């Protein structure tokens, strides 16, 4: 059970919005994490350094949590097989579908792209179906 936290969600969302706005305005790139991460390997010298910087700074942002009064919630007790299956599906799906929650759900929807609007509806629907079938993360330890 988690509580509805509209204000922190809205504030965090605005930070995401500021991030993708600046990235596109200043560097002309889409702030989609699956794309940024997936494009690090084999990318040109004009591409991989900024992607690595983005991923590194994003990971390091975690260090500001104590300053912001944030603590990390415990992760579910995943089984290794469940994690790997989920990870593979996320990797294959975001590659085939050209994006994830950030690339489609924020940047694409924000540009009013039909493809992104439909993709977001599809991945939210299939995710909701899986959550319904599995009782949330209730069987993640299997």
């Amino acid at each position, binding site marked *: 059970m*988690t509580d509805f936290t509209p204000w922190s969600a*809205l504030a965090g969302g605005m930070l995401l919005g500021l991030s993708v706005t600046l990235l596109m305005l200043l560097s002309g*790139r889409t702030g989609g994490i699956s794309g940024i991460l997936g494009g690090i*390997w084999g990318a040109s010298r004009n591409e991989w350094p900024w992607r690595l910087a983005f991923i590194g700074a994003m990971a390091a942002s975690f260090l500001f949590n104590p300053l912001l009064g944030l603590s990390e919630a415990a992760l*579910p007790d995943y089984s290794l097989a469940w994690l790997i299956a989920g990870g593979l599906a*996320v990797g*294959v799906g975001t590659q085939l579908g050209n994006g994830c929650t950030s690339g489609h759900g924020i940047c694409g929807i924000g540009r009013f792209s039909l493809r992104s609007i439909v993709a977001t509806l599809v991945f939210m629907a299939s995710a909701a179906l899986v*959550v319904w079938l599995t009782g949330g*993360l209730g069987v993640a330890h299997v």
Partner: protein
Amino acid sequence: MFKVLVGLLTGLLFGLGMNVSQMVNPYKVANFLDVTGHWDASLACVIGGALLVFVPFYHLLIKPRSHAVNGEAIQCSTQKILTPKLLIGAAIFGIGWGMVGICPGPAVASLLRGEAAIYWFLLSMMLGHYASKRVFK
């Protein structure tokens, strides 16, 4: 160099957004998707907050520009057609997302937590991404 600095700044903002919004908590994500159970609408506010900033800036400031500030072309998908590949890919992504409650953003933002689960998730995700790129291109 400019582009790397932009990467650092925007990566930091993105990571902070992930942590502040608590989207790094898989239970928040699962409860958003659990529309028939204990529904937690927070994730909708995250996307709403992001769009509140990005939509006006994109349409008023970015779209009218021919190039980004650093002189490079603004790279956005120009595809308009709904392809089976897009729909199948989105459906597969959703299955994985629903299984673990983690998508690429929260995984990267949780990298330094030192949790083995995050390493395994990211490793299999990148393997899946790479394999799919090799097989379907």
